[in-house]
């Protein structure tokens, strides 16, 4: 034994021998919570994660993370109604993160730099027919190819894109952006057949020897109502107005155009009419603004462009050069009721934007498929019938947006993959939502939102040029860094720093941290001071 100093009987030891972890009644654990943006994304994007990558300036990794779920970042960054931003926790601090504009920045950068999508999976020997080349069909084709299935994509139109090509006006989505993203998907080895209308799904399937089918035929039939009209009155529907405008063959509308309906299509039609030269573009809608189904920012942009509104009105007759409108009132339940009072509105033409129906005649001979209110009933895996027929997009019950359709395509691809493997699609359990009260917002810098440059008004009313510009790299980076990383560790080192017992081990790289339960006394400071709510305290089993 070593000789000890005078009056000392024990050798000096480190307090490391003292396992203070035994004091603990609660233990901290790292968790990943579901960020509200991810939770709201109809395409199932891991937004928080791709923002995290973008924050460090690694845009390519960010884009890959994004494109893993959605092959249309540049399109989405323009036309998505971004429910993610509506639920973004940052909105409760100052303003939501401009997720949509960062998505566009990444999407545009990917096109500019020619980043390719992930490669097709190794061949499974299975063949899938996708009917409809819109957002849903293209998304399904992309995900099916990645799973290694052979895909034949057919569409009755001469070009791919569906409503993204023939419905959404060019001032919201320039066609070259669409083409670039569609071509990138097709390059994964998808067999495309255009100008091909499927009349009978069963024979089409049999002749091609397909193992499964995905129906994404959209909703192209404009709903019509009988409106008594004089011979000279011009009535047309919004679907064909938008379609013909997209094909550079716009119909003649005259100078005073009334648009009947309250959805996004009505707003698109009104804004298109302004650009085609209408001095008056008036939306006639039977309810009020609060109850208008069109998205708020679309309505605002339309009003900025000089589109006007006639709320609480229905069209009774079209008499030569004017419409007769009946005034409505909302009853207690919020339904519009006629008042018996009438009004007039000068109009050269009337555009009907009263919703669209799906042409499902190709299913006439198909047993075991339920069609309810004009759309196909599907299982959570998007399966319509027992024998491998899946459906998605506007042809199934849902909110009809391109983003929802893209989400359907992804889900259906997984459903089909499971079906072809003789399995049933099971979703992994969902993490608890990272609500605002999980955050310790003191740590975040105050930072206002970056606005994207807008096209000046005069050009907006006369051309189909794109309205919104993109963010610069600096702005995009700043905007990405406004993300709070809700519910997911972003390695701020707070837990590692604030532990009075050094019981947090920093693993480094992007491996995050680990607790050293030998010494953690369970004080809970780490959980309290975690900015993003990624630590939970759980009772210790004693």
């Amino acid at each position, binding site marked *: 034994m070593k000789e000890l100093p005078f009056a*000392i009987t*024990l*050798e*000096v*030891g*480190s*307090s*490391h*021998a*003292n*396992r*203070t972890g035994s*004091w603990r009644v609660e233990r901290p654990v790292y968790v990943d919570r579901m960020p509200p943006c991810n939770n709201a994304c109809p395409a199932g994007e891991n937004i928080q994660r791709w923002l995290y990558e973008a*924050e*460090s300036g690694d845009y390519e990794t960010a884009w890959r993370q994004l494109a893993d779920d959605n092959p249309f970042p540049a399109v989405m960054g323009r036309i998505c109604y971004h429910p993610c931003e509506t639920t973004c926790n940052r909105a409760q601090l100052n303003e939501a993160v401009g997720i949509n504009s960062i998505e566009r920045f990444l999407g545009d950068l990917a096109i500019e730099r020619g980043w390719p999508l992930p490669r097709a999976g190794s061949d499974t020997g299975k063949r899938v027919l996708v009917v409809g080349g819109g957002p849903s069909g293209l998304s399904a084709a992309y995900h099916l190819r990645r799973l290694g299935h052979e895909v034949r994509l057919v569409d009755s139109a001469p070009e791919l894109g569906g409503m993204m090509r023939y419905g959404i006006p060019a001032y919201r989505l320039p066609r070259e952006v669409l083409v670039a993203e569609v071509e990138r998907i097709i390059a994964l080895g998808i067999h495309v057949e255009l100008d091909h209308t499927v009349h009978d799904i069963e024979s089409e399937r049999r002749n091609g020897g397909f193992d499964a089918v995905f129906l994404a035929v959209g909703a192209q039939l404009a709903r019509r109502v009988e409106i008594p009209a004089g011979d000279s009155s011009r009535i047309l529907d919004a679907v064909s107005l938008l379609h013909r405008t997209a094909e550079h063959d716009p119909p003649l509308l005259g100078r005073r155009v009334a648009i009947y309906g309250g959805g996004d299509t009505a707003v698109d039609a009104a804004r298109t009419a302004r650009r085609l030269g209408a001095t008056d573009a008036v939306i006639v809608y039977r309810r009020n603004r609060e109850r208008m189904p069109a998205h708020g920012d679309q309505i605002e942009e339309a009003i900025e462009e000089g589109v006007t509104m006639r709320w609480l009105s229905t069209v009774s007759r079209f008499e030569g050069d004017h419409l007769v409108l009946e005034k409505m009132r909302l009853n207690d339940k919020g339904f519009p009721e006629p008042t018996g009072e009438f009004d007039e509105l000068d109009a050269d033409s009337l555009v009907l934007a009263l919703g669209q129906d799906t042409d499902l005649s190709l299913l006439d001979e198909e047993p075991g498929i339920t069609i309810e209110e004009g759309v196909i009933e599907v299982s959570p895996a998007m399966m319509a019938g027992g024998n491998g027929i899946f459906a998605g997009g506007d042809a199934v019950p849902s909110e009809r947006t391109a983003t929802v359709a893209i989400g359907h395509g992804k889900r259906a691809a997984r459903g089909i993959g499971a079906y072809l493997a003789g399995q049933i699609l099971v979703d992994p359990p969902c993490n608890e939502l990272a609500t605002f009260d999980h955050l310790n917002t*003191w*740590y*975040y*810098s*105050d*930072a206002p939102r970056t606005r994207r440059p807008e096209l000046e008004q005069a050009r907006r009313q006369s051309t189909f040029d794109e309205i919104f510009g993109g963010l610069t*790299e*600096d702005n995009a*980076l*700043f905007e990405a*860094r*406004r*993300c709070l*990383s809700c519910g997911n560790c*972003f*390695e*701020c*080192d*707070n837990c*590692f*720093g*604030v532990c*009075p*017992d*050094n*019981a947090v081990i*920093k693993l*480094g790289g992007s491996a995050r941290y680990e607790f*050293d339960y*030998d*010494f953690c*006394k*369970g*004080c*809970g*400071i780490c*959980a*309290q*001071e975690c*900015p993003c709510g990624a630590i939970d*305290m759980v009772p210790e089993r004693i």
Partner: protein
Amino acid sequence: MTSQPVRFYQVGSFAVGNRLFDKENRTVQSDPHRSNSLDSGHRACQGCGEALGARYALDAAMRATGGQLIAVNATGCLEVFSTPYPETSWRVAWLHSLFANAPAVATGVAAALKVKGMQDVRVVGQAGDGGTVDIGFGCLSGMFERNDDVLFICYDNEAYMNTGVQRSGATPPAARTATTEAVGAEPGNVFGQGKDLPRLAMAHGIDYVATATVADLHDLEAKVERAMQFHGARYLHILVPCPLGWGSAPNDTIRVARLAAESGIFPVFEAEHGEVTAVSPIRHREPVESYLSLQSRYAHLFGEHGRPDIVARIQAIADHNISTYGLLEEQAVGTGSNETSP
């Protein structure tokens, strides 16, 4: 690729670390190889602010001196919980003598180093508020007056915690302690007494005096770093909440410290040669009530038989601090900025 640097980093410099910062701008505490001057296994209570403050300060001093550091400790919790015979939690050269004499012992160590020509080895003296403002004050004042080359750090938990929460000269008005019970017309500690040691230190005209809390790490580390640039007497006063003595939840230690600063009740500033040179501005001002109500030592001020009149007197103290130190003035000086030049 960028034309202008992006001067914004998500959590800026508020959090301990930031993966977006370059190495030089990161805190000592975010470094996986920090010295951990106060090691695991110490016997401080759950959520001890003093244990945290001591590691923050000494790790920063270790970095500033390249590990050439000797710490002298007065009696008090920090000494007792770290060194029950024969264990030690210290990973710095560390010395304990008595409750009253830490500044004098530190002076002696510094003098010895000088004699031995080892002035690259630096000395830190440290004590609780009792050891600093009361029993150790004579020695400390002498150390200041002689301008001995020591950084003296007071870990202020506002009472004699180690012996069971007795009142000290740093206990704030109205606080309940074992010796200032919450009874009578003026429950808790009396108003108008107690010692403002940072001011007393400044009155000695020493090179450097600063206050800090465990809630602002970047600020605390910067002050230790700055202090180490001087040779002579320096003083750092760190507010370290004590869950046991204050009756606050162990997980609220940092939150309570933050509220002390954000309410203005604990002004965070630095001074050189007797003049205030910088203050940490309040980011989101809070009423003193947010701070007081988290601590059961002030429980008698709230509830049915609460004393809003006393809360108002405490608020007046905070308001006075805010105007004296200019804590709400535009963010000209101080820390906690969300920007850094990359």
